[in-house]
Protein backbone atom coordinates (compact mmCIF):
# COMPACT_ATOMS: atom_id res chain seq x y z
CA UNK A 1 0.00 0.00 0.00
CA UNK A 2 1.62 3.21 -1.10
CA UNK A 3 -1.21 5.65 -0.48
CA UNK A 4 -4.80 5.00 0.54
CA UNK A 5 -7.47 7.69 0.61
CA UNK A 6 -10.63 7.53 2.68
CA UNK A 7 -13.53 9.94 2.88
CA UNK A 8 -16.28 9.95 5.48
CA UNK A 9 -19.40 11.99 4.73
CA UNK A 10 -22.07 12.80 7.30
CA UNK A 11 -24.04 15.59 8.86
CA UNK A 12 -22.55 17.40 11.83
CA UNK A 13 -23.06 15.48 15.05
CA UNK A 14 -23.09 11.95 13.60
CA UNK A 15 -19.58 11.30 14.91
CA UNK A 16 -17.79 10.89 11.65
CA UNK A 17 -14.92 13.25 12.43
CA UNK A 18 -14.13 11.01 15.39
CA UNK A 19 -13.94 7.99 13.07
CA UNK A 20 -11.33 9.79 10.98
CA UNK A 21 -9.34 10.86 14.03
CA UNK A 22 -9.30 7.29 15.40
CA UNK A 23 -8.15 5.90 12.08
CA UNK A 24 -5.24 8.36 11.84
CA UNK A 25 -4.19 7.69 15.43
CA UNK A 26 -4.06 3.94 14.79
CA UNK A 27 -2.23 4.25 11.48
CA UNK A 28 0.48 6.53 12.89
CA UNK A 29 0.90 5.48 16.48
CA UNK A 30 0.39 1.74 16.17
CA UNK A 31 1.37 1.01 12.56
CA UNK A 32 4.07 3.64 12.07
CA UNK A 33 2.54 4.91 8.82
CA UNK A 34 2.16 8.47 7.68
CA UNK A 35 -1.38 9.81 7.95
CA UNK A 36 -3.38 13.00 7.96
CA UNK A 37 -7.01 13.74 8.63
CA UNK A 38 -8.65 16.95 7.51
CA UNK A 39 -12.24 17.82 8.28
CA UNK A 40 -14.47 20.09 6.27
CA UNK A 41 -17.54 21.34 8.02
CA UNK A 42 -19.99 24.21 8.13
CA UNK A 43 -20.69 26.89 10.69
CA UNK A 44 -23.69 24.87 11.92
CA UNK A 45 -22.74 22.84 14.99
CA UNK A 46 -25.35 20.18 14.21
CA UNK A 47 -26.88 19.17 10.94
CA UNK A 48 -24.57 20.72 8.37
CA UNK A 49 -22.99 18.49 5.72
CA UNK A 50 -19.55 17.40 6.86
CA UNK A 51 -16.72 15.40 5.43
CA UNK A 52 -13.44 14.18 6.74
CA UNK A 53 -10.64 13.04 4.47
CA UNK A 54 -8.08 10.57 5.77
CA UNK A 55 -4.91 9.75 3.87
CA UNK A 56 -2.72 6.85 5.00
CA UNK A 57 0.59 6.39 3.27
CA UNK A 58 4.02 4.80 3.44
CA UNK A 59 5.50 8.21 2.60
CA UNK A 60 5.11 11.73 3.99
CA UNK A 61 1.92 13.37 2.73
CA UNK A 62 2.08 16.66 0.88
CA UNK A 63 -1.51 17.69 0.21
CA UNK A 64 -3.90 16.91 3.07
CA UNK A 65 -7.18 16.57 1.18
CA UNK A 66 -8.22 13.43 -0.69
CA UNK A 67 -7.86 13.65 -4.45
CA UNK A 68 -8.29 10.01 -5.57
CA UNK A 69 -10.56 8.25 -3.10
CA UNK A 70 -10.37 4.49 -2.50
CA UNK A 71 -13.05 4.22 0.16
CA UNK A 72 -16.10 6.43 0.84
CA UNK A 73 -18.49 5.93 3.76
CA UNK A 74 -21.50 8.22 3.95
CA UNK A 75 -24.40 8.39 6.40
CA UNK A 76 -26.60 11.09 4.89
CA UNK A 77 -27.97 12.06 1.49
CA UNK A 78 -26.72 15.68 1.40
CA UNK A 79 -23.05 14.95 2.03
CA UNK A 80 -23.35 12.01 -0.38
CA UNK A 81 -24.53 14.33 -3.13
CA UNK A 82 -21.83 16.95 -2.42
CA UNK A 83 -18.80 14.81 -1.56
CA UNK A 84 -18.98 11.79 -3.87
CA UNK A 85 -16.59 13.46 -6.28
CA UNK A 86 -13.00 12.35 -6.82
CA UNK A 87 -13.77 8.68 -6.22
CA UNK A 88 -11.52 6.27 -8.07
CA UNK A 89 -12.86 3.63 -10.41
CA UNK A 90 -13.45 0.49 -8.30
CA UNK A 91 -13.76 2.59 -5.16
CA UNK A 92 -15.56 0.92 -2.28
CA UNK A 93 -18.63 2.91 -1.20
CA UNK A 94 -20.60 2.28 1.98
CA UNK A 95 -23.85 4.19 2.52
CA UNK A 96 -26.44 4.13 5.23
CA UNK A 97 -29.26 2.31 3.49
CA UNK A 98 -31.98 4.29 5.29
CA UNK A 99 -30.48 7.75 4.95
CA UNK A 100 -28.85 7.65 1.52
CA UNK A 101 -31.56 6.59 -0.92
CA UNK A 102 -30.57 8.28 -4.19
CA UNK A 103 -27.26 6.79 -5.23
CA UNK A 104 -27.04 7.99 -8.83
CA UNK A 105 -24.63 6.28 -11.20
CA UNK A 106 -22.59 3.78 -9.20
CA UNK A 107 -21.37 1.59 -12.08
CA UNK A 108 -17.68 2.23 -11.37
CA UNK A 109 -17.88 1.53 -7.64
CA UNK A 110 -18.53 -1.40 -5.37
CA UNK A 111 -21.43 -0.22 -3.20
CA UNK A 112 -22.53 -1.58 0.20
CA UNK A 113 -25.85 -0.11 1.35
CA UNK A 114 -26.09 -1.08 5.04
CA UNK A 115 -28.18 0.26 7.95
CA UNK A 116 -25.24 1.76 9.88
CA UNK A 117 -27.13 4.18 12.11
CA UNK A 118 -29.99 1.80 12.89
CA UNK A 119 -27.71 -1.14 13.68
CA UNK A 120 -25.60 1.13 15.89
CA UNK A 121 -28.69 2.09 17.89
CA UNK A 122 -30.11 -1.42 18.09
CA UNK A 123 -26.99 -3.57 18.11
CA UNK A 124 -24.51 -1.42 20.01
CA UNK A 125 -27.13 0.31 22.11
CA UNK A 126 -26.22 3.94 21.54
CA UNK A 127 -26.09 6.07 18.39
CA UNK A 128 -22.97 7.89 19.64
CA UNK A 129 -21.05 4.73 18.73
CA UNK A 130 -21.51 5.41 15.00
CA UNK A 131 -17.88 6.53 14.86
CA UNK A 132 -16.55 3.20 16.12
CA UNK A 133 -19.00 1.19 14.00
CA UNK A 134 -17.84 3.14 10.93
CA UNK A 135 -14.22 2.54 11.85
CA UNK A 136 -14.85 -1.21 12.08
CA UNK A 137 -16.63 -1.21 8.70
CA UNK A 138 -13.62 0.59 7.24
CA UNK A 139 -11.21 -1.92 8.74
CA UNK A 140 -13.15 -4.88 7.44
CA UNK A 141 -13.46 -3.59 3.88
CA UNK A 142 -10.06 -1.97 3.44
CA UNK A 143 -7.57 -3.58 5.84
CA UNK A 144 -5.92 -0.15 5.90
CA UNK A 145 -5.28 -0.83 9.59
CA UNK A 146 -5.16 -4.21 11.31
CA UNK A 147 -8.08 -5.56 13.32
CA UNK A 148 -5.85 -6.14 16.34
CA UNK A 149 -4.52 -2.60 16.35
CA UNK A 150 -8.06 -1.27 16.06
CA UNK A 151 -9.19 -3.25 19.11
CA UNK A 152 -6.05 -2.32 21.05
CA UNK A 153 -6.52 1.37 20.34
CA UNK A 154 -10.24 1.41 21.13
CA UNK A 155 -9.59 -0.27 24.50
CA UNK A 156 -7.04 2.41 25.30
CA UNK A 157 -9.07 5.32 23.91
CA UNK A 158 -12.54 4.50 25.26
CA UNK A 159 -13.52 6.62 28.27
CA UNK A 160 -13.66 4.77 31.57
CA UNK A 161 -16.67 2.50 31.80
CA UNK A 162 -17.33 2.46 28.04
CA UNK A 163 -14.81 -0.13 26.84
CA UNK A 164 -17.38 -2.92 26.61
CA UNK A 165 -19.86 -0.86 24.60
CA UNK A 166 -17.11 0.29 22.25
CA UNK A 167 -15.95 -3.28 21.69
CA UNK A 168 -19.58 -4.20 21.03
CA UNK A 169 -19.65 -1.40 18.43
CA UNK A 170 -16.65 -2.97 16.68
CA UNK A 171 -18.52 -6.26 16.55
CA UNK A 172 -21.60 -4.54 15.08
CA UNK A 173 -19.42 -2.92 12.42
CA UNK A 174 -17.70 -6.16 11.51
CA UNK A 175 -21.05 -7.95 11.20
CA UNK A 176 -22.61 -5.22 9.03
CA UNK A 177 -20.46 -6.34 6.11
CA UNK A 178 -21.03 -9.94 5.13
Amino acid at each position, binding site marked *: MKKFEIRYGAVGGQGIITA*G*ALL*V*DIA*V*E*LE*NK*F*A*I*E*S*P*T*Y*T*AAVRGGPTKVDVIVSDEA*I*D*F*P*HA*TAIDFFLCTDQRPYDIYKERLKDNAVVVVDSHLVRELGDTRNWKVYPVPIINETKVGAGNVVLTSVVSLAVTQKLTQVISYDHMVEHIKHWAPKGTVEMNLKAIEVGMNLIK
Partner: protein
Amino acid sequence: MSARKVLQGNVIIAKAALAAGCDFFAGYPITPSSEIAQYMSKEMPKLERTFIQMEDEIASLGACIGASLAGRKTMTATSGPGFSLMQEHIGMAVMAEVPVVIVNVMRGGPSTGMPTKPAQSDMMQARWGTHGDHPIIALYPAFAEEMFSETVRAFNLAEKYWNPVILLSDEVLGKAHMDVEIPEPGSYEVYWEQPRQIIDLNIYDRNIGENPPRVDFFHGYPIHIDGLEHDAHGWPSFDARTVDKMQKLRMQKIYQNLDDIIRYKEYFLDDAEVLVFSFGISARSALAAVKAAREQGVKAGLFQALTVWPFPRAALQERFKKTRKVLTVEMNMGQMKYEVERIAPPGVEKQNLLRANGMPFSPDEVLNAIKEMVR
Protein backbone atom coordinates in the same frame (compact mmCIF):
# COMPACT_ATOMS: atom_id res chain seq x y z
CA MET B 1 5.32 2.15 18.77
CA SER B 2 6.24 5.27 16.88
CA ALA B 3 7.95 8.43 18.10
CA ARG B 4 5.57 10.24 15.82
CA LYS B 5 2.24 11.36 17.23
CA VAL B 6 -0.97 12.60 15.70
CA LEU B 7 -1.72 16.17 16.67
CA GLN B 8 -4.03 18.83 15.37
CA GLY B 9 -2.15 21.69 13.69
CA ASN B 10 -3.46 24.20 16.23
CA VAL B 11 -2.24 21.96 19.04
CA ILE B 12 1.23 21.70 17.49
CA ILE B 13 1.44 25.50 17.62
CA ALA B 14 0.25 25.55 21.23
CA LYS B 15 2.73 22.85 22.25
CA ALA B 16 5.54 24.69 20.50
CA ALA B 17 4.61 27.89 22.31
CA LEU B 18 4.91 26.08 25.63
CA ALA B 19 8.25 24.63 24.53
CA ALA B 20 9.45 28.12 23.60
CA GLY B 21 8.68 29.25 27.13
CA CYS B 22 5.41 31.09 26.55
CA ASP B 23 4.23 31.86 30.06
CA PHE B 24 1.40 34.25 29.34
CA PHE B 25 -1.51 33.73 26.95
CA ALA B 26 -4.44 36.10 26.65
CA GLY B 27 -6.97 35.43 23.95
CA TYR B 28 -10.51 35.30 22.74
CA PRO B 29 -11.38 32.01 21.01
CA ILE B 30 -12.41 32.17 17.36
CA THR B 31 -12.80 29.53 14.67
CA PRO B 32 -10.53 28.14 13.26
CA SER B 33 -7.97 29.01 15.95
CA SER B 34 -9.96 28.06 19.07
CA GLU B 35 -8.03 24.91 19.93
CA ILE B 36 -4.92 26.99 20.58
CA ALA B 37 -6.70 28.88 23.37
CA GLN B 38 -8.39 25.67 24.50
CA TYR B 39 -5.09 23.81 24.81
CA MET B 40 -3.40 26.73 26.57
CA SER B 41 -6.32 27.04 29.01
CA LYS B 42 -5.78 23.41 30.04
CA GLU B 43 -1.98 23.27 30.06
CA MET B 44 -0.84 26.71 31.27
CA PRO B 45 -2.27 26.40 34.81
CA LYS B 46 -0.55 23.01 35.24
CA LEU B 47 2.77 24.72 34.56
CA GLU B 48 1.90 27.67 36.81
CA ARG B 49 1.77 29.92 33.77
CA THR B 50 -0.98 32.41 33.05
CA PHE B 51 -3.97 31.94 30.76
CA ILE B 52 -6.63 34.63 30.54
CA GLN B 53 -9.72 34.58 28.36
CA MET B 54 -10.23 38.25 27.62
CA GLU B 55 -13.41 40.09 26.68
CA ASP B 56 -12.24 40.62 23.10
CA GLU B 57 -9.21 40.63 20.83
CA ILE B 58 -8.27 44.25 21.51
CA ALA B 59 -7.95 43.49 25.21
CA SER B 60 -6.18 40.21 24.43
CA LEU B 61 -3.26 41.87 22.70
CA GLY B 62 -3.29 44.70 25.24
CA ALA B 63 -2.85 42.18 28.03
CA CYS B 64 -0.04 40.46 26.15
CA ILE B 65 1.81 43.74 25.67
CA GLY B 66 1.52 44.55 29.36
CA ALA B 67 2.66 41.09 30.42
CA SER B 68 5.55 41.20 27.97
CA LEU B 69 6.76 44.45 29.50
CA ALA B 70 6.60 42.69 32.86
CA GLY B 71 9.02 40.06 31.58
CA ARG B 72 6.69 37.38 30.27
CA LYS B 73 6.86 35.55 26.96
CA THR B 74 3.44 36.20 25.53
CA MET B 75 1.17 34.94 22.79
CA THR B 76 -2.35 35.43 21.56
CA ALA B 77 -4.18 33.53 18.81
CA THR B 78 -7.01 34.59 16.57
CA SER B 79 -8.42 34.59 13.04
CA GLY B 80 -9.24 37.37 10.55
CA PRO B 81 -11.97 39.25 12.44
CA GLY B 82 -9.91 39.24 15.63
CA PHE B 83 -6.74 40.08 13.74
CA SER B 84 -8.50 43.19 12.41
CA LEU B 85 -9.29 44.25 15.96
CA MET B 86 -5.67 43.72 17.01
CA GLN B 87 -4.17 46.06 14.43
CA GLU B 88 -4.11 49.11 16.68
CA HIS B 89 -2.17 47.26 19.36
CA ILE B 90 0.22 45.75 16.84
CA GLY B 91 1.24 49.34 16.08
CA MET B 92 1.62 50.01 19.80
CA ALA B 93 3.87 46.95 20.19
CA VAL B 94 5.99 48.04 17.22
CA MET B 95 6.28 51.61 18.50
CA ALA B 96 7.03 50.70 22.10
CA GLU B 97 9.23 47.78 20.93
CA VAL B 98 7.47 45.00 22.80
CA PRO B 99 7.94 41.32 21.95
CA VAL B 100 4.71 39.39 21.40
CA VAL B 101 3.63 36.51 19.17
CA ILE B 102 0.28 36.86 17.39
CA VAL B 103 -1.13 33.78 15.68
CA ASN B 104 -3.61 34.33 12.84
CA VAL B 105 -5.23 31.12 11.59
CA MET B 106 -6.66 32.51 8.37
CA ARG B 107 -10.25 31.92 7.28
CA GLY B 108 -12.42 33.29 4.50
CA GLY B 109 -13.08 37.03 4.72
CA PRO B 110 -13.70 39.94 4.73
CA SER B 111 -15.75 40.53 7.90
CA THR B 112 -16.98 37.32 9.55
CA GLY B 113 -16.68 35.74 6.09
CA MET B 114 -16.39 31.96 6.17
CA PRO B 115 -15.37 30.80 9.65
CA THR B 116 -14.82 27.15 8.66
CA LYS B 117 -13.11 27.69 5.31
CA PRO B 118 -9.44 28.38 4.67
CA ALA B 119 -7.97 31.48 3.06
CA GLN B 120 -4.65 33.25 2.69
CA SER B 121 -6.22 36.65 2.40
CA ASP B 122 -4.53 38.36 5.35
CA MET B 123 -1.03 38.39 3.84
CA MET B 124 -1.04 42.14 3.22
CA GLN B 125 -2.89 42.82 6.45
CA ALA B 126 -0.04 41.07 8.26
CA ARG B 127 2.36 43.48 6.57
CA TRP B 128 0.40 46.73 6.52
CA GLY B 129 -2.61 46.22 8.78
CA THR B 130 -1.52 48.71 11.37
CA HIS B 131 -1.00 52.29 10.28
CA GLY B 132 2.28 54.09 9.93
CA ASP B 133 5.62 52.97 8.56
CA HIS B 134 6.67 50.00 10.61
CA PRO B 135 8.80 46.89 10.51
CA ILE B 136 7.08 43.54 10.92
CA ILE B 137 8.05 39.89 10.94
CA ALA B 138 5.53 37.30 9.71
CA LEU B 139 6.18 33.56 9.49
CA TYR B 140 3.97 30.97 7.79
CA PRO B 141 4.68 27.24 8.21
CA ALA B 142 3.11 24.62 5.93
CA PHE B 143 4.14 21.20 7.22
CA ALA B 144 3.71 19.66 10.67
CA GLU B 145 7.36 19.92 11.78
CA GLU B 146 7.49 23.51 10.53
CA MET B 147 4.45 24.39 12.61
CA PHE B 148 6.53 23.50 15.64
CA SER B 149 9.84 25.00 14.55
CA GLU B 150 8.39 28.25 13.18
CA THR B 151 6.37 28.82 16.35
CA VAL B 152 9.53 28.48 18.45
CA ARG B 153 11.30 30.76 15.99
CA ALA B 154 8.49 33.33 16.24
CA PHE B 155 9.19 33.63 19.97
CA ASN B 156 12.94 33.79 19.40
CA LEU B 157 12.64 36.56 16.84
CA ALA B 158 10.17 38.53 18.96
CA GLU B 159 12.53 38.39 21.94
CA LYS B 160 15.66 39.07 19.96
CA TYR B 161 14.35 42.05 18.02
CA TRP B 162 11.78 43.42 20.44
CA ASN B 163 9.06 43.40 17.87
CA PRO B 164 5.70 41.72 17.41
CA VAL B 165 5.93 38.59 15.28
CA ILE B 166 2.90 37.36 13.37
CA LEU B 167 2.59 33.62 12.95
CA LEU B 168 0.26 32.83 10.06
CA SER B 169 -1.61 29.60 9.58
CA ASP B 170 -4.84 28.66 7.83
CA GLU B 171 -8.00 26.65 8.45
CA VAL B 172 -6.69 23.51 6.76
CA LEU B 173 -3.41 23.45 8.69
CA GLY B 174 -5.11 24.46 11.92
CA LYS B 175 -7.84 21.84 11.82
CA ALA B 176 -6.03 18.88 10.28
CA HIS B 177 -4.76 16.09 12.51
CA MET B 178 -1.34 15.18 11.22
CA ASP B 179 1.55 12.97 12.15
CA VAL B 180 4.39 14.92 13.65
CA GLU B 181 7.59 14.27 15.50
CA ILE B 182 7.92 16.76 18.33
CA PRO B 183 11.64 17.43 18.83
CA GLU B 184 13.28 16.82 22.19
CA PRO B 185 13.83 19.89 24.35
CA GLY B 186 17.41 21.03 23.89
CA SER B 187 17.46 20.09 20.20
CA TYR B 188 16.24 23.56 19.17
CA GLU B 189 17.24 27.06 20.19
CA VAL B 190 15.11 28.93 22.69
CA TYR B 191 16.25 32.53 22.84
CA TRP B 192 15.91 34.32 26.12
CA GLU B 193 17.76 37.31 27.40
CA GLN B 194 17.53 37.83 31.13
CA PRO B 195 15.90 41.23 31.70
CA ARG B 196 18.49 43.80 32.61
CA GLN B 197 18.22 46.08 35.60
CA ILE B 198 17.86 49.63 34.31
CA ILE B 199 20.91 51.69 35.13
CA ASP B 200 19.62 54.90 33.61
CA LEU B 201 16.42 56.04 32.02
CA ASN B 202 17.63 55.89 28.43
CA ILE B 203 15.88 52.61 27.77
CA TYR B 204 15.68 53.10 24.01
CA ASP B 205 19.22 54.39 23.65
CA ARG B 206 21.39 52.26 21.35
CA ASN B 207 23.22 52.40 18.06
CA ILE B 208 21.36 51.91 14.80
CA GLY B 209 21.39 48.25 13.80
CA GLU B 210 21.90 46.99 17.33
CA ASN B 211 19.44 44.64 18.91
CA PRO B 212 17.63 46.23 21.80
CA PRO B 213 18.22 44.76 25.25
CA ARG B 214 15.41 43.29 27.32
CA VAL B 215 14.86 45.70 30.15
CA ASP B 216 13.41 44.82 33.52
CA PHE B 217 10.73 47.47 33.37
CA PHE B 218 9.27 47.00 36.78
CA HIS B 219 12.31 46.84 39.01
CA GLY B 220 14.38 49.97 39.15
CA TYR B 221 13.53 53.42 37.89
CA PRO B 222 10.13 54.55 36.73
CA ILE B 223 10.16 54.54 32.96
CA HIS B 224 7.78 55.72 30.29
CA ILE B 225 6.34 53.53 27.54
CA ASP B 226 4.36 55.31 24.89
CA GLY B 227 2.68 54.84 21.55
CA LEU B 228 3.64 58.41 20.76
CA GLU B 229 6.95 58.88 18.98
CA HIS B 230 9.53 59.14 21.70
CA ASP B 231 13.14 59.82 22.54
CA ALA B 232 15.68 57.52 24.17
CA HIS B 233 13.94 58.04 27.52
CA GLY B 234 10.60 56.95 26.09
CA TRP B 235 9.16 60.44 26.52
CA PRO B 236 7.12 61.92 23.66
CA SER B 237 9.26 63.78 21.16
CA PHE B 238 8.48 65.06 17.68
CA ASP B 239 11.89 66.56 17.12
CA ALA B 240 12.68 65.64 13.51
CA ARG B 241 16.22 64.42 14.21
CA THR B 242 15.07 62.31 17.15
CA VAL B 243 12.20 60.88 15.10
CA ASP B 244 14.61 60.04 12.27
CA LYS B 245 16.86 58.18 14.63
CA MET B 246 14.07 56.29 16.40
CA GLN B 247 12.51 55.24 13.09
CA LYS B 248 15.87 53.98 11.88
CA LEU B 249 16.43 52.09 15.13
CA ARG B 250 13.13 50.28 14.73
CA MET B 251 13.54 49.59 11.03
CA GLN B 252 17.19 48.61 10.99
CA LYS B 253 17.01 46.13 13.85
CA ILE B 254 14.92 44.08 11.40
CA TYR B 255 16.33 45.05 8.00
CA GLN B 256 20.00 44.73 8.99
CA ASN B 257 19.36 41.19 10.22
CA LEU B 258 17.54 39.65 7.27
CA ASP B 259 19.90 36.67 7.16
CA ASP B 260 18.78 35.74 10.64
CA ILE B 261 15.10 36.39 10.02
CA ILE B 262 14.41 35.11 6.53
CA ARG B 263 13.89 31.41 6.06
CA TYR B 264 12.53 29.53 3.06
CA LYS B 265 12.65 26.10 1.48
CA GLU B 266 13.59 25.24 -2.07
CA TYR B 267 12.52 22.06 -3.82
CA PHE B 268 13.82 20.92 -7.24
CA LEU B 269 14.85 24.45 -8.22
CA ASP B 270 18.38 23.95 -9.52
CA ASP B 271 17.34 23.10 -13.07
CA ALA B 272 13.75 24.34 -12.89
CA GLU B 273 12.09 25.88 -15.90
CA VAL B 274 9.09 26.99 -13.81
CA LEU B 275 9.44 28.29 -10.26
CA VAL B 276 6.29 27.94 -8.18
CA PHE B 277 6.17 30.52 -5.39
CA SER B 278 3.88 29.63 -2.53
CA PHE B 279 3.41 29.29 1.24
CA GLY B 280 1.15 27.64 3.82
CA ILE B 281 -1.52 25.23 2.59
CA SER B 282 -0.97 26.27 -1.04
CA ALA B 283 2.70 25.26 -0.78
CA ARG B 284 1.57 21.75 0.12
CA SER B 285 -0.52 21.55 -3.07
CA ALA B 286 2.38 23.05 -4.99
CA LEU B 287 4.91 20.53 -3.64
CA ALA B 288 2.66 17.63 -4.67
CA ALA B 289 2.28 19.31 -8.07
CA VAL B 290 5.99 19.84 -8.74
CA LYS B 291 6.69 16.24 -7.77
CA ALA B 292 4.01 15.10 -10.23
CA ALA B 293 5.43 17.44 -12.87
CA ARG B 294 8.90 15.94 -12.43
CA GLU B 295 7.43 12.46 -12.88
CA GLN B 296 6.06 13.67 -16.20
CA GLY B 297 9.38 15.18 -17.23
CA VAL B 298 8.37 18.79 -16.59
CA LYS B 299 11.09 20.76 -14.83
CA ALA B 300 9.23 22.54 -12.07
CA GLY B 301 10.42 23.54 -8.62
CA LEU B 302 8.97 25.13 -5.50
CA PHE B 303 10.11 28.15 -3.54
CA GLN B 304 8.27 27.94 -0.22
CA ALA B 305 8.47 31.08 1.88
CA LEU B 306 8.56 30.40 5.62
CA THR B 307 9.31 34.02 6.42
CA VAL B 308 6.75 35.95 4.38
CA TRP B 309 7.62 39.34 5.89
CA PRO B 310 10.22 40.64 5.35
CA PHE B 311 9.76 39.22 1.88
CA PRO B 312 12.55 36.78 0.87
CA ARG B 313 13.56 39.07 -1.94
CA ALA B 314 17.25 38.31 -2.34
CA ALA B 315 16.82 34.53 -2.44
CA LEU B 316 14.06 34.75 -5.00
CA GLN B 317 16.01 37.22 -7.15
CA GLU B 318 18.90 34.78 -7.17
CA ARG B 319 16.58 32.11 -8.60
CA PHE B 320 15.32 34.44 -11.31
CA LYS B 321 18.85 34.57 -12.75
CA LYS B 322 18.26 31.08 -14.12
CA THR B 323 14.55 30.36 -13.89
CA ARG B 324 12.56 32.64 -16.17
CA LYS B 325 9.02 31.53 -15.40
CA VAL B 326 7.22 32.03 -12.09
CA LEU B 327 3.82 30.81 -10.96
CA THR B 328 2.49 32.33 -7.73
CA VAL B 329 -0.10 30.16 -5.96
CA GLU B 330 -2.11 31.71 -3.15
CA MET B 331 -5.61 31.42 -1.70
CA ASN B 332 -6.57 35.05 -2.19
CA MET B 333 -7.44 37.41 -5.03
CA GLY B 334 -3.79 38.41 -5.52
CA GLN B 335 -1.56 39.68 -2.71
CA MET B 336 1.97 38.22 -2.56
CA LYS B 337 1.99 38.07 -6.35
CA TYR B 338 2.63 41.82 -6.27
CA GLU B 339 5.82 41.25 -4.28
CA VAL B 340 6.92 38.66 -6.83
CA GLU B 341 6.12 41.03 -9.69
CA ARG B 342 8.06 43.85 -8.02
CA ILE B 343 11.26 41.88 -7.89
CA ALA B 344 11.03 39.68 -10.99
CA PRO B 345 13.30 41.18 -13.63
CA PRO B 346 11.92 42.08 -17.07
CA GLY B 347 11.61 39.03 -19.26
CA VAL B 348 10.47 36.72 -16.48
CA GLU B 349 7.06 35.29 -17.37
CA LYS B 350 4.66 35.71 -14.45
CA GLN B 351 1.48 33.71 -13.97
CA ASN B 352 -0.79 33.33 -10.97
CA LEU B 353 -3.19 30.83 -9.51
CA LEU B 354 -5.53 32.79 -7.29
CA ARG B 355 -8.77 31.86 -5.55
CA ALA B 356 -10.53 32.82 -2.33
CA ASN B 357 -13.70 30.70 -2.38
CA GLY B 358 -12.74 28.44 0.52
CA MET B 359 -11.44 25.61 -1.69
CA PRO B 360 -7.70 24.96 -1.48
CA PHE B 361 -6.01 24.35 -4.83
CA SER B 362 -5.68 20.67 -5.54
CA PRO B 363 -2.28 19.44 -6.76
CA ASP B 364 -3.69 18.72 -10.24
CA GLU B 365 -4.88 22.31 -10.61
CA VAL B 366 -1.35 23.53 -9.84
CA LEU B 367 0.11 20.89 -12.14
CA ASN B 368 -2.13 22.03 -15.01
CA ALA B 369 -1.05 25.64 -14.48
CA ILE B 370 2.61 24.58 -14.55
CA LYS B 371 2.07 22.63 -17.77
CA GLU B 372 0.35 25.62 -19.39
CA MET B 373 3.56 27.58 -18.84
CA VAL B 374 5.88 25.07 -20.51
CA ARG B 375 3.64 24.34 -23.46
